[in-house]
């Protein structure tokens, strides 16, 4: 650690220089550092990075940035270092001038490993505390809070004075507090003040920070610390519950998305579609194909890939669904168990077909920028893809309800659900409705596929992973009742997530299954099953 500390000191000193005598041409350390970058050795590179950072050379920042995202090239033969610009031009790292002429044949990227990334982050952290971009400053302030290295304190305080934007200022203060708390020469009073600041931050890191006080801390500080950590823990406990709820919600929405199509085919037509999972899988593959085309042809559109994939997936899965209904299922009405077997067969065929067509391995489906990453909401971290999936599920569900309620097709579907003969009698072409219903169910499965491609494997086995769970949801929720499916999915999802922490993932799943089995005994037709005079025999 000691060596590292020295480096930081040096960096800080450098910052001093930059601030005072900016722009002063200053040959020596920078050039030597470049030498070191050409040895392809992590230790050397590390030293070089520090040296560069401290050199105060205007090229320092761009060079380190280049190193960070692998655009820093070197040639071992003629001991030269180049910065590759985003548009693949070479810049001579020494002069900063564009490099024209043939690049050396042994040109290779300067390699980085985790430890180096650490060093770079630290260097950046210190370098960018004063960066013009607020977001950068925020980032580096956070970095300092994590590293909480006493050496950076002056830099932090300087930055603190200069800082205008409150949220950055807040983090800087926390960073400063963190450092002060760690430092031995801080007065108890300051330490307590620091503790309070950190307490108000109140996240896991703060807790760790406060609890990692050395043994020799004075009593009053210790008291404050214990009080603070107690409060943080209370606070965290609450957030923990909230988080479980959120996780449950998002798991539930995935289940719902996967099951809702099934609920329709099962509810309206009493058809057990074992190939439902494969419809989901097809949807995911449509997404893959769309993204492939976009990657190769129009990379610019990548962020819209899902938007493009959705309708296509719906149409494709729906088409396959209708084809299945027309070619197989319609001959099996009134024989649900036979349908079950036939559709199982279909699912096997579809799986192997995809396996033959696309190969058995996983396919890459990327997250668009707006679906990757996460943000903090109070004490919990919300990942964008989960959030969007929950929203998406909500939209699909609402749209479906609306469709059933307000459209002609929906009306006819409900008619068929309630009384097939009567519906036929009043001139509804039940055959057509069946086909459309099945298409709709499959289409929604396709949509689910698009969503699942964002969190799960895109492989021929994708569907298998969801089919049983989906059935559980439908049966649990009660057939022929979308609200039942909704409640069913969310209940199972949340129950699962509250069980998981102490029961473990496997037992949680088993417990849920057993629960459903028992539940079906109590309500053989599910939670929200339509009662009424079931005409038997």
């Amino acid at each position: 650690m000691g060596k590292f500390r020295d480096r930081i000191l040096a960096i800080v000193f450098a910052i001093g220089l930059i601030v005072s005598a900016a722009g002063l041409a200053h040959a020596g350390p920078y050039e030597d550092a470049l030498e070191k970058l050409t040895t392809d050795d992590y230790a050397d590179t590390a030293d070089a990075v520090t040296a560069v950072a401290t050199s105060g050379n205007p090229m320092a920042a761009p060079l380190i940035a280049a190193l960070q995202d692998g655009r820093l090239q070197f040639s071992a033969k003629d001991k030269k270092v180049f910065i590759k610009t985003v548009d693949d031009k070479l810049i001579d790292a020494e002069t900063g001038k564009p490099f024209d002429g043939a690049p050396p044949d042994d040109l290779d990227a300067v390699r980085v490993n985790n430890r180096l990334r650490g060093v770079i982050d630290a260097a950046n952290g210190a370098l960018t505390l004063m960066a013009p971009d607020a977001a950068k400053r925020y980032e580096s302030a956070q970095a300092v809070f994590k590293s909480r290295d006493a050496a950076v304190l002056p830099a932090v305080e300087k930055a603190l004075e200069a800082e205008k934007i409150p949220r950055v200022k807040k983090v800087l203060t926390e960073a400063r507090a963190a450092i002060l708390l760690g430092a031995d020469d801080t007065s108890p009073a300051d330490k307590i003040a620091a503790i309070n600041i950190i307490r108000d931050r109140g996240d896991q890191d703060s807790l760790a920070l406060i609890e990692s006080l050395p043994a020799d801390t004075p009593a009053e500080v210790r008291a404050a610390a214990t009080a603070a950590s107690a409060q943080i823990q209370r606070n965290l406990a609450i957030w923990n519950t909230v988080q479980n709820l959120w996780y449950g919600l998002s798991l539930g929405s995935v289940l719902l998305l996967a099951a809702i199509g099934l609920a329709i085919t099962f509810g309206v037509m009493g058809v057990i579609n074992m190939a439902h999972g494969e419809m989901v899988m097809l949807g995911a593959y449509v997404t893959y194909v769309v993204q492939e085309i976009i990657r190769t042809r129009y990379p610019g559109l990548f962020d819209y890939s899902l938007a493009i994939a959705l309708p296509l997936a719906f149409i494709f899965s729906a088409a396959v669904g209708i084809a299945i209904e027309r070619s197989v299922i319609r001959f099996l009405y009134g024989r649900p168990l036979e349908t079950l077997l036939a559709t199982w067969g279909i699912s096997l065929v579809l799986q192997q077909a995809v396996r033959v067509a696309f190969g058995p391995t996983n396919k890459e489906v990327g997250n668009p920028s707006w679906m990757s990453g996460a943000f903090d909401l109070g004490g919990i971290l919300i990942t964008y893809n989960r959030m969007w999936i929950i929203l998406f599920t909500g939209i699909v569900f609402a749209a479906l309800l609306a469709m059933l309620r307000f459209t002609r097709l929906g009306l006819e579907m409900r008619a068929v659900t309630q009384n097939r003969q009567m519906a036929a009698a009043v001139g509804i072409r039940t055959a057509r409705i069946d086909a459309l219903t099945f298409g709709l169910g499959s289409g929604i499965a396709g949509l689910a596929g698009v969503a699942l491609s964002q969190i799960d494997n895109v492989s021929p086995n994708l569907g298998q992973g969801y089919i049983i769970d989906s059935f559980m949801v439908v049966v649990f929720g009660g057939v022929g009742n979308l609200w039942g499916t909704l409640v069913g999915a969310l209940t199972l999802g949340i129950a699962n997530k509250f069980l998981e922490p102490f029961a473990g993932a496997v037992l949680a799943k088993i417990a849920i299954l057993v629960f459903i089995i028992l539940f079906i005994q109590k309500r053989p037709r599910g939670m929200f099953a339509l009662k009424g005079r079931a005409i038997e025999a």
Partner: protein
Amino acid sequence: MATVQADRKTTSSLLYLDGISVSFDGFKALNELSFIVEPGEMRAIIGPNGAGKTTMMDVITGKTRPDEGDVFFEEGKYDLSKLDETEIATLGIGRKFQKPTVFEMHTVEDNLQLSLKNDRSVKATLFWQSSAEQEARIDQVLDIVRLKHLRARVAGSLSHGQKQWLEIAMLLAQDPKLLLVDEPVAGMTDVETMQTAELLREINKTKTVVVVEHDMAFVRELGVKVTCLHEGSVLAEGSIDQVSTNDRVVEVYLGR
């Protein structure tokens, strides 16, 4: 068997319904329905669709539990609302469904064999052997419903009317105290209808019968006391002539 001490209201009656209410998803199928069937009587029950005829049958046979009200059988000896189908059937209440329901895969004979009054337990049926008197009983029943010549036929291959009769025969084979017959002549030719009426009168000589029917001609043919249901409760009761001249009946039912 849940028995209840006879109380004076219920004594004489074979079947006693009082204030039966049943509702599905808010819709009241039966509403404070009450009536009494005396031993040996034959009763015809009429009423428009959704009047609650079949639901009433379900309540009597234990398929549907009443939300409220009493159902007593045999002078109040048994509280039917506490028993399930099987127990009620073994008490001696036989039911014929609206849609003829026989064991299509079995021969006429086997259908009756299964219906004959016998020990119904698993053990008994596993080690069961047919006997002469059983055979005789089957012949006798087949005679009554005029299906003797079809004894070896698979029930599935019978005509609609024949199935109706076979089902009635199965009820007889059960040797019940009370027969509930739901629309026995639905989809029958006039001739068959008349024959059925005759058949039921024949049966009524030994057993109590409750017939649910739309066909007024048939009900007239039976010439028995009629109860008209409407919206789950009794609208009118009496001879067919009284009932069919009752203004409200005419209004809700015959009028249309």
